[in-house]
Protein backbone atom coordinates (compact mmCIF):
# COMPACT_ATOMS: atom_id res chain seq x y z
CA UNK A 1 0.00 0.00 0.00
CA UNK A 2 1.21 3.51 -0.77
CA UNK A 3 -0.41 4.99 2.30
CA UNK A 4 0.51 2.66 5.09
CA UNK A 5 0.10 -0.65 6.68
CA UNK A 6 -2.55 -2.38 8.67
CA UNK A 7 -1.67 -4.51 11.59
CA UNK A 8 -2.14 -7.39 11.93
CA UNK A 9 -2.48 -8.65 8.36
CA UNK A 10 -4.58 -11.53 9.62
CA UNK A 11 -6.42 -12.15 12.88
CA UNK A 12 -8.28 -15.24 14.07
CA UNK A 13 -10.44 -15.10 17.19
CA UNK A 14 -13.34 -16.92 18.82
CA UNK A 15 -16.90 -15.63 18.78
CA UNK A 16 -17.52 -13.28 21.68
CA UNK A 17 -13.94 -12.04 21.82
CA UNK A 18 -12.89 -8.53 20.89
CA UNK A 19 -10.91 -7.80 17.74
CA UNK A 20 -8.53 -4.88 17.40
CA UNK A 21 -7.07 -3.78 14.10
CA UNK A 22 -4.57 -0.98 13.62
CA UNK A 23 -3.85 1.26 10.69
CA UNK A 24 -1.01 3.66 10.03
CA UNK A 25 -0.83 6.37 7.41
CA UNK A 26 1.79 8.74 6.13
CA UNK A 27 0.29 12.07 5.10
CA UNK A 28 -1.89 14.66 6.82
CA UNK A 29 -5.55 13.77 6.54
CA UNK A 30 -8.99 15.31 6.68
CA UNK A 31 -10.80 12.12 7.62
CA UNK A 32 -10.14 8.46 8.13
CA UNK A 33 -12.74 5.89 7.16
CA UNK A 34 -13.03 2.19 7.90
CA UNK A 35 -14.56 -0.28 5.46
CA UNK A 36 -15.43 -3.96 5.58
CA UNK A 37 -15.17 -6.29 2.61
CA UNK A 38 -16.48 -9.80 2.49
CA UNK A 39 -14.49 -12.04 0.21
CA UNK A 40 -14.50 -10.63 -3.32
CA UNK A 41 -17.47 -8.39 -2.64
CA UNK A 42 -18.16 -4.71 -2.21
CA UNK A 43 -16.75 -2.33 0.36
CA UNK A 44 -19.18 -1.52 3.14
CA UNK A 45 -18.68 1.82 4.87
CA UNK A 46 -18.41 1.33 8.63
CA UNK A 47 -17.41 4.61 10.20
CA UNK A 48 -15.73 7.95 9.50
CA UNK A 49 -13.64 9.83 12.01
CA UNK A 50 -12.54 13.39 11.39
CA UNK A 51 -8.97 14.53 11.97
CA UNK A 52 -10.10 16.65 14.95
CA UNK A 53 -11.82 13.70 16.63
CA UNK A 54 -10.07 11.21 18.87
CA UNK A 55 -12.68 8.51 19.34
CA UNK A 56 -15.94 7.47 17.80
CA UNK A 57 -18.45 4.71 18.48
CA UNK A 58 -21.02 2.99 16.32
CA UNK A 59 -22.77 -0.03 17.79
CA UNK A 60 -20.09 -2.63 18.52
CA UNK A 61 -17.45 -0.59 16.73
CA UNK A 62 -15.03 1.79 18.39
CA UNK A 63 -12.53 3.79 16.37
CA UNK A 64 -9.69 5.84 17.74
CA UNK A 65 -7.46 8.28 15.90
CA UNK A 66 -4.05 9.59 16.93
CA UNK A 67 -2.95 12.18 14.41
CA UNK A 68 0.37 12.73 16.20
CA UNK A 69 1.26 9.10 15.54
CA UNK A 70 -0.63 8.97 12.25
CA UNK A 71 -2.49 5.88 13.37
CA UNK A 72 -5.99 4.60 13.97
CA UNK A 73 -7.49 1.52 15.53
CA UNK A 74 -10.76 -0.29 15.00
CA UNK A 75 -12.16 -2.32 17.87
CA UNK A 76 -15.00 -4.76 17.29
CA UNK A 77 -16.49 -5.92 20.56
CA UNK A 78 -18.31 -9.20 21.19
CA UNK A 79 -17.40 -10.47 17.73
CA UNK A 80 -19.69 -12.72 15.71
CA UNK A 81 -19.01 -15.19 12.93
CA UNK A 82 -20.68 -12.71 10.57
CA UNK A 83 -17.87 -10.23 11.30
CA UNK A 84 -15.51 -12.45 9.32
CA UNK A 85 -14.21 -10.20 6.54
CA UNK A 86 -11.32 -7.98 5.52
CA UNK A 87 -11.17 -4.56 7.11
CA UNK A 88 -9.55 -1.57 5.44
CA UNK A 89 -8.79 1.90 6.62
CA UNK A 90 -8.81 4.68 4.04
CA UNK A 91 -7.69 8.28 4.18
CA UNK A 92 -7.96 11.33 2.02
CA UNK A 93 -5.10 13.79 1.78
CA UNK A 94 -5.32 17.12 3.52
CA UNK A 95 -1.81 18.01 2.41
CA UNK A 96 -2.41 17.11 -1.22
CA UNK A 97 -6.01 18.26 -1.37
CA UNK A 98 -6.83 14.90 -2.86
CA UNK A 99 -10.27 13.63 -1.91
CA UNK A 100 -9.79 10.20 -3.45
CA UNK A 101 -9.16 7.57 -0.82
CA UNK A 102 -5.88 5.82 -0.21
CA UNK A 103 -6.38 2.42 1.38
CA UNK A 104 -4.31 0.48 3.84
CA UNK A 105 -3.42 -3.09 3.05
CA UNK A 106 -6.26 -4.52 5.12
CA UNK A 107 -6.67 -6.96 7.99
CA UNK A 108 -8.30 -10.33 7.34
CA UNK A 109 -10.44 -11.18 10.35
CA UNK A 110 -11.65 -14.72 10.94
CA UNK A 111 -14.17 -15.22 13.73
CA UNK A 112 -14.53 -18.86 14.70
CA UNK A 113 -18.01 -19.92 15.85
Amino acid at each position, binding site marked *: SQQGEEDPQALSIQEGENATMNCSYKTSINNLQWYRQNSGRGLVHLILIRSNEREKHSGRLRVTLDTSKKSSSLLITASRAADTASYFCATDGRGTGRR*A*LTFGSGTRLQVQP
Partner: protein
Amino acid sequence: AAGVIQSPRHLIKEKRETATLKCYPIPRHDTVYWYQQGPGQDPQFLISFYEKMQSDKGSIPDRFSAQQFSDYHSELNMSSLELGDSALYFCASSQEGGGSRNEQFFGPGTRLTVL
Protein backbone atom coordinates in the same frame (compact mmCIF):
# COMPACT_ATOMS: atom_id res chain seq x y z
CA ALA B 1 -31.81 3.60 1.27
CA ALA B 2 -30.61 3.70 -2.32
CA GLY B 3 -27.07 2.55 -2.88
CA VAL B 4 -24.52 2.84 -5.64
CA ILE B 5 -25.41 0.64 -8.59
CA GLN B 6 -22.83 -0.88 -10.88
CA SER B 7 -23.31 -2.88 -14.02
CA PRO B 8 -22.49 -5.40 -15.14
CA ARG B 9 -21.58 -7.31 -11.99
CA HIS B 10 -19.42 -9.75 -13.89
CA LEU B 11 -17.71 -9.39 -17.25
CA ILE B 12 -15.49 -11.75 -19.19
CA LYS B 13 -13.46 -10.43 -22.10
CA GLU B 14 -10.66 -11.57 -24.36
CA LYS B 15 -7.30 -9.79 -24.59
CA ARG B 16 -7.37 -6.70 -26.79
CA GLU B 17 -11.15 -6.36 -26.49
CA THR B 18 -12.93 -3.36 -25.02
CA ALA B 19 -15.20 -3.10 -21.99
CA THR B 20 -17.55 -0.48 -20.59
CA LEU B 21 -18.45 -0.38 -16.93
CA LYS B 22 -21.33 1.70 -15.63
CA CYS B 23 -21.93 3.37 -12.30
CA TYR B 24 -25.09 5.01 -10.96
CA PRO B 25 -24.36 7.07 -7.83
CA ILE B 26 -26.59 7.52 -4.85
CA PRO B 27 -29.27 10.14 -5.65
CA ARG B 28 -28.09 13.71 -4.99
CA HIS B 29 -24.46 12.62 -4.87
CA ASP B 30 -22.46 14.75 -7.26
CA THR B 31 -19.08 13.02 -7.20
CA VAL B 32 -18.03 9.65 -8.54
CA TYR B 33 -14.77 7.84 -7.92
CA TRP B 34 -13.45 4.75 -9.71
CA TYR B 35 -11.14 2.29 -7.96
CA GLN B 36 -9.44 -0.90 -9.12
CA GLN B 37 -8.75 -3.80 -6.76
CA GLY B 38 -6.46 -6.55 -8.01
CA PRO B 39 -6.51 -10.02 -6.41
CA GLY B 40 -5.36 -9.85 -2.81
CA GLN B 41 -4.66 -6.12 -3.06
CA ASP B 42 -6.17 -2.98 -1.64
CA PRO B 43 -8.26 -0.71 -3.87
CA GLN B 44 -6.33 1.81 -5.97
CA PHE B 45 -7.81 5.09 -7.13
CA LEU B 46 -8.22 5.52 -10.88
CA ILE B 47 -10.19 8.69 -11.61
CA SER B 48 -12.93 10.91 -10.22
CA PHE B 49 -15.58 13.32 -11.46
CA TYR B 50 -17.35 16.19 -9.80
CA GLU B 51 -20.33 17.82 -11.47
CA LYS B 52 -19.53 16.05 -14.74
CA MET B 53 -15.96 17.32 -14.88
CA GLN B 54 -12.87 15.24 -14.20
CA SER B 55 -11.69 16.28 -10.74
CA ASP B 56 -8.70 14.04 -10.12
CA LYS B 57 -6.68 11.35 -11.78
CA GLY B 58 -4.86 8.47 -10.19
CA SER B 59 -3.17 5.42 -11.64
CA ILE B 60 -5.45 5.08 -14.62
CA PRO B 61 -3.82 3.61 -17.74
CA ASP B 62 -3.98 5.63 -20.94
CA ARG B 63 -6.02 2.77 -22.43
CA PHE B 64 -8.84 3.65 -20.03
CA SER B 65 -11.11 6.66 -20.18
CA ALA B 66 -14.15 7.73 -18.22
CA GLN B 67 -16.82 10.34 -18.12
CA GLN B 68 -19.73 11.50 -16.03
CA PHE B 69 -23.01 12.27 -17.73
CA SER B 70 -25.71 14.87 -17.11
CA ASP B 71 -27.66 12.44 -14.90
CA TYR B 72 -24.45 11.93 -12.85
CA HIS B 73 -23.95 8.34 -13.87
CA SER B 74 -20.45 7.49 -14.96
CA GLU B 75 -18.89 5.06 -17.40
CA LEU B 76 -15.39 3.61 -17.42
CA ASN B 77 -14.23 2.62 -20.89
CA MET B 78 -11.39 0.16 -21.15
CA SER B 79 -9.69 -0.66 -24.43
CA SER B 80 -6.97 -3.07 -25.55
CA LEU B 81 -7.61 -5.16 -22.48
CA GLU B 82 -4.67 -7.00 -20.95
CA LEU B 83 -4.57 -9.98 -18.62
CA GLY B 84 -3.43 -7.65 -15.83
CA ASP B 85 -6.65 -5.67 -16.09
CA SER B 86 -8.49 -8.56 -14.44
CA ALA B 87 -9.72 -7.06 -11.19
CA LEU B 88 -12.67 -5.79 -9.23
CA TYR B 89 -13.66 -2.32 -10.32
CA PHE B 90 -15.48 -0.23 -7.76
CA CYS B 91 -17.38 2.96 -8.13
CA ALA B 92 -17.97 5.16 -5.09
CA SER B 93 -20.11 8.25 -4.75
CA SER B 94 -20.15 11.13 -2.35
CA GLN B 95 -21.73 14.52 -1.89
CA GLU B 96 -18.99 17.09 -2.20
CA GLY B 97 -20.81 20.37 -1.83
CA GLY B 98 -21.09 22.34 1.41
CA GLY B 99 -17.90 21.07 3.02
CA SER B 100 -18.97 17.47 3.14
CA ARG B 101 -17.01 14.93 5.08
CA ASN B 102 -16.10 13.11 1.90
CA GLU B 103 -17.92 10.02 3.07
CA GLN B 104 -17.64 7.67 0.11
CA PHE B 105 -20.12 4.88 -0.44
CA PHE B 106 -19.10 2.02 -2.66
CA GLY B 107 -21.03 -0.03 -5.15
CA PRO B 108 -20.87 -3.82 -5.26
CA GLY B 109 -18.18 -3.75 -7.93
CA THR B 110 -17.75 -5.22 -11.39
CA ARG B 111 -15.55 -8.28 -11.58
CA LEU B 112 -13.66 -8.15 -14.87
CA THR B 113 -11.90 -11.24 -16.09
CA VAL B 114 -9.64 -10.95 -19.12
CA LEU B 115 -8.79 -14.24 -20.81
